[in-house]
C-alpha cells in the first residue's frame, strides 16, 4: 500500500476529504480489492482502539457510579434513621404531654378509701400546747415543679398507698359516761372514728384558742387530707412545721410531702421527701426513701 493511499484513507476517517478526493476514494474502493481491504482493516483498527478506550472509561465510570450510589444509600439510610428518631421523640413528647401536660381537672377527685383504726405509729413526745395564729398562711403554690414521671394516676396511687390518717394513744378519746362530750372531745372522737367531714364541721365549734392550737390544727389537716382537700391540708402542715410547737411535727412533715404529691407539686414533694429520708429522727424515713424511689 502506497503512502499516498494511506494518507487518503486516514483523511477519509478524519472526514477531511475534498469532493475530488472523495470521488477518488470511491473509485478505488469499487475497483481495487487491496485498497478496499486496507480501508476495512483501518476501520477495524479504529473500532478496536475505540472499543478498548470505551471499555476502560466506562468501567471506571461504572465503578465510580457504584461508589456514589453506595454513599447515597448510606446517607439516605442515615437520614431515615434521623427521621425515625425524630418521629419517635415527637411521639414520646406527645405521649408525655397527654399524660402530664394537660391542665389538671378542677373537680376534686373523691378521696381514697382509708382505714381509720390503725394506730401503729410511734408515740410522739409530750406537746406544748399554746395558741397560734390562724391558718391563713400563704397559699400552697400551684404545681410548678412537676416531674414528668408522675402522672395523675400514679400520684393518686402512691398517695393512697402511703397515706393513713395519723393516730396514736394520745389521740384516742376517753369515755365519759352518758354526758355529751365537750366539743374538743367530740372533734377527736369523730376523727378517731374516721368521720372526717363531720370532724371538720365539729372543728368550727371548738373554742377560738383550740382552733389555733397546732395539735388541733394537725387533726384538722389530717381530716382535710383524708377528704381530698390536699391544698388546704398542706397550708396547715406548713404552718405547723414553721411554728415547730406541735408534737406531731414529724407526722406533719410526712403528710405535707404526701399533700404535695397529691396536688402534683412534685418538686416540693421530692424536696420534702429527701429531707425526711435523711432525717434519722423521722419514723417515716424509710417510707420517704421508698416513695422517693417510686417517684424517680
Amino acid at each position: 500500500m502506497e503512502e499516498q493511499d494511506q494518507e487518503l484513507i486516514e483523511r477519509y476517517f478524519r472526514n477531511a476529504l475534498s469532493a475530488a478526493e472523495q470521488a477518488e476514494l470511491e473509485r478505488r474502493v469499487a475497483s481495487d480489492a487491496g485498497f478496499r481491504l486496507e480501508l476495512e482493516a483501518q476501520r477495524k483498527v479504529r473500532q478496536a482502539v475505540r472499543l478498548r478506550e470505551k471499555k476502560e472509561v466506562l468501567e471506571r465510570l461504572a465503578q465510580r457510579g457504584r461508589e456514589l450510589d453506595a454513599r447515597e444509600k448510606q446517607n439516605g439510610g442515615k437520614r431515615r434513621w434521623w427521621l425515625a428518631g425524630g418521629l419517635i421523640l415527637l411521639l414520646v413528647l406527645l405521649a408525655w404531654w397527654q399524660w402530664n401536660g394537660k391542665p389538671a381537672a378542677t373537680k376534686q377527685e373523691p378521696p381514697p378509701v382509708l382505714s381509720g383504726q390503725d394506730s401503729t405509729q410511734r408515740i410522739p413526745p409530750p406537746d406544748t400546747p399554746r395558741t397560734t395564729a390562724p391558718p391563713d398562711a400563704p397559699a400552697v403554690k400551684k404545681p410548678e415543679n412537676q416531674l414528668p414521671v408522675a402522672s395523675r394516676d400514679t400520684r393518686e396511687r402512691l398517695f393512697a398507698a402511703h397515706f393513713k390518717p395519723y393516730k396514736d394513744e394520745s389521740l384516742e378519746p376517753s369515755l365519759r359516761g352518758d354526758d355529751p362530750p365537750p366539743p374538743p372531745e367530740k372533734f377527736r372522737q369523730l376523727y378517731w372514728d374516721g368521720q372526717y367531714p363531720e370532724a371538720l364541721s365539729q372543728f368550727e365549734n371548738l373554742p377560738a384558742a383550740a382552733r389555733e392550737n397546732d395539735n388541733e390544727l394537725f387533726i384538722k389537716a389530717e381530716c382535710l387530707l383524708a377528704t381530698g382537700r390536699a391544698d388546704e391540708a398542706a397550708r396547715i402542715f406548713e404552718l405547723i412545721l414553721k411554728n415547730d410547737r406541735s408534737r406531731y411535727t414529724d407526722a406533719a412533715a410526712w403528710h405535707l410531702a404526701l399533700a404535695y404529691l397529691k396536688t402534683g407539686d412534685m418538686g416540693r414533694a421530692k424536696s420534702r421527701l429527701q429531707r425526711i429520708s435523711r432525717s434519722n429522727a423521722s419514723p417515716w424515713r424509710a417510707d420517704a426513701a421508698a416513695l422517693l424511689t417510686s417517684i424517680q
Partner: protein
Amino acid sequence: MGVRFTLPDHYYATTRWSKAVYYSNNILTFSPNYPKLGNTGLTDSAEILRALSEGHTQVLQSLYEQHRPDFFRWAGRRIECGRPEMEDAWQEAVFAFYEQAASRKLTAFRYNARTWLFAVGYRKLLNQRRKTKWIFWKDEIDDALVRDPVFQQFPGEEPGAEEQASLLASMEEMSTQCRNLLRQRFFLEKSIPEIQQLYDYQSTNALSVSLSRCLKRLKELFREKAGI
C-alpha cells in the same frame, strides 16, 4: 479554589498540560485563573477540552459525578425507564463527549457541558425506549436537540456484540506499548511528531516503524480471530 482531579503519575510528564494547571501530591488542580468545573464555568473551558484531547480521563470522572444526579432526576421525569438504563445512557453521553473532544471534533462549546451531555444521554434513552412521559415544558436541551443536527449522530453505530468481542480480544493481545501508540494515533488523533515528543522517540521514522509493526500485528490478530 480550583477543582481537583487525581491523575496517574505518567500524566505528569505532559508538559503542555502542566502550563494550565499546577500539581501537588498527585493532585491536579485547575489554577484559580482557569474556568472551574462548576455549573457554568466548564462550558467555556478550552482547558477542559484540551485535557480531554490529551486523554486525561479524570476530567471525565468529574463531569460524570457533577451532573449525574441531575440527569437522573431530569431524565426520570421525561422517560419511563429504570436507573440502570439511565446509568448506561449517562455513561455513553460522557464517553461521547470525551470521544468528540479527543478527536477534536468538539473544539468549542456551543452549549454548556450539561446541555451537551443531557442531549446526548436523552437521545440514547429515546433510542432505547421511544416511550416518553408527557412533557409540559421545554428547556434548553429540547431546543438544542431540535435545532442542532450535530446531536442526530448520537448514538452512533456500534459493531455487533460478536465483532466487538473479537476486536477487544485482539487489542488485549497487543503489547502495552502498541496499545498506547495506537490509542494516541487513532483515538486521540495525535500526529506523528506529537507522539514522538510524548514518548521520546529518537525520530519520526523510528516511531513510524513501531507504529507500522503494531498495525501489522493487530491486522494479523483480526485475521486470526476471524479464522482467515
